[in-house]
């Protein structure tokens, strides 16, 4: 991706002009400078403006004196100004200022944000033309999520702690999170896994799901049909039993004949002798009336019986006395009753009656007794009770008859209604049976060989096969290997031009370990197994350049065609024995001419590549080494020299 750094801008706290570092496009831009002038802040500032999670700009002069950091980048869409608010005391802030245009003017001050981190990242993803599909459809794993512009930065920056690091080859690959993501996107940036493959992965996942569902549906149908065939004879017999087909029908033996017969049964209209439900309702209504009547008649009968009993009792206890009878029954005997009550428990009511007390009560009883004795002098006589007995007996008889009649009608109606119920049941059963036959036939047809379900399954399988072809892991591996071979051959071309120990030893890309291996005879050693800082630097430079060459071989690869190296020459400087109080601006010195030549080789190769790619590749180097080391090389330009009064942050900002 054409993505070149045009400006790096710092906005101060005070109201003065912002500090702008201009870069040259399509060349090696060297910022040569002494220690502590801000060289190592450049990569963090660019990274922060490109949307890093944390701000790694060193705490100190830069953070204290700047309110916003910004970069202007040139893309095929034109220029873009990406500025981000300095985090102050926080780790980072999401406030961003983002403007686009053919040419962007750097504002004197930024008054406030106009974007946030997420929208800027989305713009960068779009710019890089990255797929928005993840790497694994079924995984919620963050490492397998879609490739993002942030992941691509790994191929662009080589800060001080990485550029000659034997353990880590790529920017930010020193944390597990980034390592895993980088491994995942490596096949993507090497074009082994394309957006088409990712899409095929997602489609295949979808197809497989739907295939599994349809297959299980078909299995269920087939199983149901097998069971149904097994009991087909029983279905036909049930049809005969319900009278849907003639009882003397011959049961067919062949499945297709049975099927035809069942189809005929399903078409038949069920019983014609269909009992009317209205008729049933009338019966039930009458039954209800009769039951009410029965209750009343039973009550009347009970009353008559009671009377009859009473009369019978009277007759049985009576003595014949002339024409009349003498009825013998318990007398009221109020006197005795009261007296007994008084003697037993004098209750409240008795006390009230005998207001004067117990004696008064007893006196009352005596007087009552006297009256009663007089009353009993003559027996109570009555006429004969025959007439009454007869009348009551007749009445009882009538009541009984009426009741019996009602009961008989009820029983009759109930029988009839049971018969009606049974007929209705039979009708229902037949209808239900026919419904079941019809349903079973529909299911059978659906599971038939010609059914669309099988067609769909066949289509889905074909589609799955096609998709498998696209995403074939073997194909991916082959493409990955081919791409790696291209990169490796470029590395092998570059290494002899650098100061490496084994110039002819072939180099292999170890993608799973995110490093390289050097093949010497029967051995192949990982980068961390090889000694010497000079070797580490050489392989870092060669690998990053080779990858860029691979990316540049495409018209518009997603990785920006940009490389930034921070102090590649550090491995050639002797370790400083001691620090002086005022070591600002003090440059370390190279040990000998040989080291100078080694550093010059690095600059020469980078310049050569910038020239070869005709302005499509931009390289930025931040280094101690001055023009005396790399001067006169084609494609290499000094942009700024940060020595003496000059540094990234102007001295007047904080003095």
């Amino acid at each position, binding site marked *: 991706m054409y993505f070149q750094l045009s400006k790096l801008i710092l906005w101060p706290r005070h109201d003065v002009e912002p500090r702008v570092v201009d870069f040259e496009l399509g060349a090696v831009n060297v910022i040569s400078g002494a220690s502590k002038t801000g060289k190592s802040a450049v990569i963090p500032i660019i990274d922060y403006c490109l949307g890093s999670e944390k701000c790694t700009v060193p705490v100190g002069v830069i953070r204290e004196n700047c309110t916003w950091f910004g970069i202007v980048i040139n893309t095929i869409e034109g220029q873009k100004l990406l500025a981000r608010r300095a985090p102050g005391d926080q780790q980072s802030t999401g406030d961003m200022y983002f403007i686009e245009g053919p040419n962007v003017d750097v504002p004197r001050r930024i008054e406030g944000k106009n974007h946030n981190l997420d929208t800027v990242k989305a713009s960068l993803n779009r710019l890089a033309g990255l797929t928005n599909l993840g790497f694994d459809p079924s995984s919620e794993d963050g490492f397998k999520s879609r490739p993002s512009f942030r992941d691509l930065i790994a191929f662009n920056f080589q800060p001080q702690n990485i550029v000659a690091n034997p353990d880590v080859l790529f920017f930010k690959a020193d944390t597990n999170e980034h390592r895993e993501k980088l491994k995942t996107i490596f096949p993507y940036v090497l074009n082994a896994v394309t957006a088409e493959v990712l899409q095929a992965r997602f489609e295949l996942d979808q197809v497989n799901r739907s295939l599994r569902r349809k297959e299980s549906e078909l299995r269920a149908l087939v199983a149901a049909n097998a069971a149904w065939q097994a009991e087909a004879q029983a279905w036909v017999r049930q049809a005969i039993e319900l009278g849907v087909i003639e009882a003397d029908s011959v049961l067919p033996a062949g499945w297709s004949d049975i099927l035809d017969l069942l189809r005929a049964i399903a078409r038949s209209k069920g019983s014609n002798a269909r009992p009317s439900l209205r008729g049933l309702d009338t019966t039930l209504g009458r039954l209800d009336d009769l039951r009410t009547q029965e209750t009343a008649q039973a009550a009347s009968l009970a009353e008559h019986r009671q009377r009859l009993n009473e009369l019978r009792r009277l007759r049985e206890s009576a003595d014949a006395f002339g024409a009349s009878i003498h009825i013998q029954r318990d007398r*009221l005997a109020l006197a005795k009753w009261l007296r007994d009550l008084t003697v037993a428990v004098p209750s409240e*009511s008795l006390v*009230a009656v005998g207001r004067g007390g117990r004696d008064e009560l007893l006196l009352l009883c005596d007087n009552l007794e006297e009256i009663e004795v007089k009353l*009993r002098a003559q027996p*109570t006589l009555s006429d004969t009770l025959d007439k009454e007995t007869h009348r009551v007996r007749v009445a009882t008889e009538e009541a009984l008859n009426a009741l019996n009649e009602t009961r008989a009608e009820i029983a009759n109606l109930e029988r009839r209604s049971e018969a009606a119920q049974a007929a209705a049941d039979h009708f229902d059963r037949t209808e239900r049976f026919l419904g079941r036959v019809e349903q079973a036939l529909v299911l059978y047809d659906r599971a038939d060989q010609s059914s669309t379900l099988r067609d769909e399954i066949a289509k889905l399988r074909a589609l799955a096969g096609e998709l498998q072809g696209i995403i074939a892991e073997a194909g991916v591996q082959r493409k990955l290997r081919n791409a790696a071979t291209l990169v490796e051959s470029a590395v092998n071309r570059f290494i002899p031009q650098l100061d490496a120990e084994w110039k002819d030893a072939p180099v292999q890309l170890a993608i799973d370990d995110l490093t390289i291996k050097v093949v010497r005879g029967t051995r192949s050693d990982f980068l961390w197994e090889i000694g010497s800082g000079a070797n580490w630097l050489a392989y870092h430079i060669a690998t990053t350049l080779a990858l860029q060459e691979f990316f540049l071989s495409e018209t518009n690869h997603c990785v920006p065609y940009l490389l930034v190296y921070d102090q590649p020459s550090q491995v050639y400087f002797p370790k400083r024995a001691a620090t002086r109080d005022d070591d600002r601006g003090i440059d370390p010195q190279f040990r000998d001419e040989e080291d100078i030549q080694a550093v010059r080789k690095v600059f020469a190769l980078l310049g050569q590549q910038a020239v070869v790619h005709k302005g499509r590749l931009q390289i930025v180097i931040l280094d101690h080494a001055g023009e005396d080391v790399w001067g006169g090389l084609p494609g290499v330009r000094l942009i700024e020299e940060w020595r003496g009064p000059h540094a990234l942050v102007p001295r007047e900002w904080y003095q």
Partner: protein
Amino acid sequence: MNRSLSELEIIQNPALGAYLLWRFGVSYQASDGRQAPFHLFFLVLPLVLHRHTLSKISSTQRASGLALFAAKLAEERENLMAIHNRTLSLRRLSLQSLAMGADHRLLSISATDATVRANTADERFRVPTLPDRLTSLARAPEKLGYWCSQFSLHQIAKTLMVDF
């Protein structure tokens, strides 16, 4: 009392009984000032608190008298003969009603001659206005009181076929 009363308890309650007995006594005394015999008070509730009998009382003119009433009732003789048993059954209720009447000075029981006096109301005594449903019930003991005042206890017992 939380328990709701049964229909039986509502009808056969001593307060209503006391009221009915008082009306009976007042009516009995009205003709010649004689006080009604104690025994008669036990016949009032069995006659009045029986729907069929009550309807016969209501449909018999006051002037017709007890005899005609008994004859009407005896069209089906078992109805007349049931009075005795009903009197036995309601004996306790009658006693409670008498007691409540006595307690609230509607009635005064005289032990010496075994009679009950129905105390007539003075100006301060307000006779409660009865709901329409109860007017026929309240009139029946009045009629009975008048009828009984015309006969001796003995004759009443024979007419109503009650054995004291």
